């Protein structure tokens, strides 16, 4: 890739990250943000109230960082799955991780658990859901793509039904609204501690995908051909599934259901750098990070109450996808 593109890819999210720190319902000047950040690296006199420091360092910074990592991770997961399933219409939810995670979160809310416990439960359920899908899809020591898709549909439907059950028994005065708001997606749970729990799986999964990006190219030629080129397709598929599930389960457990990022950003990436995963994966990371960070800034600033992330990403993602559909006339070339 051209040097200028690489520079832009790294600079854009970082610039937006900085801007996000002085945007919000609580006014903080950019210069003050700069001094607060600097004071964590090099001690200088504090001439700002402790509450402002908390807002910048404990509330906004974790939230912005989380937005970047979740956006990057989901976009990369979408790219990886679209290559693996050889289908540009695939999103990271396809194996049921989101439905299972959502049910876990609902259970935690029904039991009045706090946000950190909810995160752990939702993450565990997400992993379990994909595990069931994988087991269900195994046929003679192989997991054909079609079996994976069908098993994902079954497991997702099952957990969706359980989720509906949870909503049905939830007290409509407090628990049901909580479950509803959680499902719509929000980064409000971001804190240094939730970040410390969510980031390691996202980073691990992303690193795994980066290492595997050439093998993903070959897998996109089809299982048979990839095998004839020496690729261990079953191990590779399992590896990609593990990586994307770590990313997606961690993301959903901390911010609910954020749709469209995993589906649309890879297409944007392909339009810019083509389908070669060597360039597409890093590009997806960067665009995804910038996109979700921007959306979250709008979500938490536009009104007093928060606009759910899921709504905003759909409002923007769906028309954009429609535009892509018309432009490519469905041929995806």
């Amino acid at each position, binding site marked *: 890739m051209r040097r200028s593109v690489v520079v832009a890819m790294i600079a854009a999210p970082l610039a937006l990250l900085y801007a996000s720190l002085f945007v*919000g*319902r*609580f006014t903080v000047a950019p210069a003050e943000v700069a001094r607060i950040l600097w004071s964590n690296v090099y001690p200088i006199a504090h001439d700002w109230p*402790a*509450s402002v*420091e*908390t*807002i910048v360092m*404990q*509330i*906004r910074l974790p*939230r912005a960082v989380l937005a970047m990592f979740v956006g990057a991770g989901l976009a990369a997961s979408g790219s990886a799955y679209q290559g693996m399933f050889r289908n540009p219409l695939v999103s990271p939810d396809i194996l049921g991780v989101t439905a299972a995670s959502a049910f876990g*979160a609902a259970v*935690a*809310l029904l039991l*009045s*658990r*706090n*946000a*950190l*416990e*909810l995160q752990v439960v939702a993450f565990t359920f997400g992993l379990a859901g994909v595990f069931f899908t994988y087991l269900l899809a195994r046929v003679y020591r192989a997991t054909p793509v079609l079996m994976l898709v069908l098993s994902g549909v079954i497991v997702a439907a099952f957990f969706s039904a359980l989720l509906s059950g949870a909503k*049905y*028994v*939830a*007290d*409509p*005065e*407090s*628990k*049901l*609204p*909580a*479950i509803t*708001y*959680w499902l719509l997606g*929000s980064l*409000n*749970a971001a*804190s*240094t*501690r939730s970040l410390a729990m969510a980031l390691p799986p996202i980073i691990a999964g992303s690193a795994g995908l980066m290492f595997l990006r050439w093998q993903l190219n070959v897998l996109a030629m089809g299982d048979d051909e990839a095998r004839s080129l020496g690729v261990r397709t079953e191990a590779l598929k399992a590896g990609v599934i593990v990586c994307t599930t770590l990313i997606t389960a961690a993301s959903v457990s901390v911010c609910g259901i954020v749709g469209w990022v995993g589906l649309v950003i890879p297409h944007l990436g392909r339009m810019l750098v083509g389908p070669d995963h060597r360039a597409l994966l890093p590009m997806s990371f960067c665009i995804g990070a910038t996109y979700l960070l921007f959306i979250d800034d709008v979500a*938490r600033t536009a009104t*007093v*109450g*928060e606009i*759910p992330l899921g709504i905003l990403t759909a409002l923007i993602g769906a028309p954009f996808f429609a535009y892509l559909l018309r432009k490519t006339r469905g041929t995806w070339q």
Partner: protein
Amino acid sequence: MNRRKSLIGVACLWGIGILAAGTRTHAADPDTRQLTDAAGRLVTIPARVTRVADPWHANNSVVLMLGGADKIVATTAQAQNQPWFRRLYPRIKQVPAAFNAAGEVNVEALIGARPDVILMAYDGTLPPWTGAVSAYRVPIVMMPNRSLAELKTTVHMTGEVLGESESRVAAEYLRYFDDNIRRVTSVTSKLKSLERPKVLHTASAGVLTVDGRQSVIDDWITIAGGINAADVVGLARPVTMEQVAAWNPDVIIVGTAPNQQNRQAILDDPRWRQIKAVKDGRVFVNPSGVYLWDRHSAEAALQLLWAAKTLHPAEFADLDVGKETRNFYEKYFHYALSDDELNSILHAAPP
């Protein structure tokens, strides 16, 4: 000729029979009475009500307080699962829960309980099952639920529906309620706005939601001499951490899913650390007994006292919430609270 005559005769008899049956239902019945409910409907209920279905969770505690709990024949799981309700009135465990959490009804279970009347909360629209139930001619009395003033109306209406002795208890309760309001506002109405703490009443832990304006919670916060810090409308509204930091409440009350763990989570969370309420150590768990005190339960009368004392301990130094609670439970629930039990209720712990 004979055949035609007998046919006419049969037809006449049939017609008379139908007419007779029809007129019977329209005659004024000394066994019924009528009242206008919150939806503006004129409802006809039996003169003596012995069987009541109550799908309004909080209202079950009102019925218990009025002494009419023996008449409850259908209730909700939410109401019958309140640990203190079960302790004070064990029969509630056996009452069929014909209504689920969302307020939908199992019509067979409901009709099988043969209620004389159904008591419902009215929030502006009739629930969708009223049509199905009305075919069974069970009257539904809608009662208002959107403010503290409306809560008083509801208590009065509940008493009226249940019967004479319950009406008397309702009147007494409402006197006590008004007394408490007077007692509290005599102090709080003199407070200047600067002396009124900003109060944030949170609704849930896993997802940050707060209770805002135009609600019963807003009402008792105001009466108790506070200002609702949540500048949103309605109950259980989602807000961002940043917005809470911008509001910077002086007092935080953990309500509606109140338990010590959620309070502790707020105290431990670094994002809440700079909020004034946390710095000053003014984070409280809302008491919860037969039902949650902060909502439309019978214990709303006690909530006023507790809130006033919590927000203004100095001005209400002579107010003994524990003693008031004990007296209330003795008088209305006929239950003597031990020290441990009283402590648990005031800290929203189960028995």
